[in-house]
């Protein structure tokens, strides 16, 4: 039995899982705060726009979003598998393409800022 090539998809999944665990709760809380009109001064539109316009800021945002998308795609793939949906190749292809398209769209959007 040959060794599996699963690390190719698992490593970015693990990295994305870590990113989600650290970043997403903060983003959700800040999102709610912003929606309720309590925007901390450091997170004003101008500041965040400047962050996203900077090269390093773009890289950080792309990293967080792309890894989170990949991680979510892989998690949904595993959940489908656990529920007995055994068309794994098809499910994986659709989900991974969605994550890649989402990441490319993010890159394009960030590039335009």
């Amino acid at each position: 039995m040959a060794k599996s090539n699963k690390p190719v998809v698992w490593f970015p999944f693990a990295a994305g899982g870590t990113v989600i665990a650290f970043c997403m709760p903060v983003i959700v809380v800040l999102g709610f705060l912003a929606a309720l009109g309590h925007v901390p001064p450091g997170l004003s539109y101008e500041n965040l726009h400047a962050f996203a316009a900077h090269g390093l800021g773009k890289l950080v945002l792309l990293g967080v979003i792309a890894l989170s998308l990949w991680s979510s795609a892989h998690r949904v793939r595993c959940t489908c598998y656990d529920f007995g949906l055994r068309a794994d190749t098809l499910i994986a292809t659709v989900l991974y393409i969605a994550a890649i398209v989402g990441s490319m769209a993010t890159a394009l959007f960030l590039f335009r800022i």
Partner: protein
Amino acid sequence: MKERLVQLEVLRYNPDTDTEAHFQRYEVMCQEEWVVLDALNKIKADIDPTLNYRWSCHMAVCGSCGMMINGEPKLSCHAFLRSYEGVIRVEPLAHFPVERDLVTAPDDFMEKLKRVKPYVITKQKKPIEEGEYKQTPAQLMKFRQYSMCINCMLCYAACPEYGLTPHFVGPAALTLAHRYNLDSRDEGRKERMEVVATKEGVWECTFVGACSEVCPAHVDPASALQQLKIVGSIDWIVEHLLPGGKP
């Protein structure tokens, strides 16, 4: 001593006479502090001597009395009657072929256990005059938790992946592979990874985590498998992406 009338619904199957398994209900007077195994022993002694099940130590050490109690994999010697209300449903361990009543065939697990070489492998044996293989407490602590497995197979009964994909090497065997990989005296990691790092090995695991929830020895197989995935991934990078790389 307080007593209570307990109702048990036990799955019965006799391969000589039955075409399929069926539930049989027993009513048995039990003491308040008894476990499910005590109730089964009372049934066998006083009501129905034909009931078959495995047990040995009655103290959650031998790992032989695993069964499904109200749908959950448990050691019956560790499942207190006071934790249950109403009829208690007792079935053989899930995902294993039933031999008779509550007795299952563990052959598949035994074969997988052998495949991961769960013993210390050394390239060169030290002559006995050179003394023992020494280990510091810190080196011991690295794998101690994973060495507490009692081979009860509850983790296999809990694992949905093993249920769906029987060729999956499974939680306990992989955890024991990790235990020996982490042992400072061992040199067999490469041999074990040939089994562990395959699709049937650790990569079939989707980290449901049920194995760790049911483990009566607090081994936490899910953590061992996650660590094995990291080790397997680093090996993969070394093998495929580094020039002339070998793990």
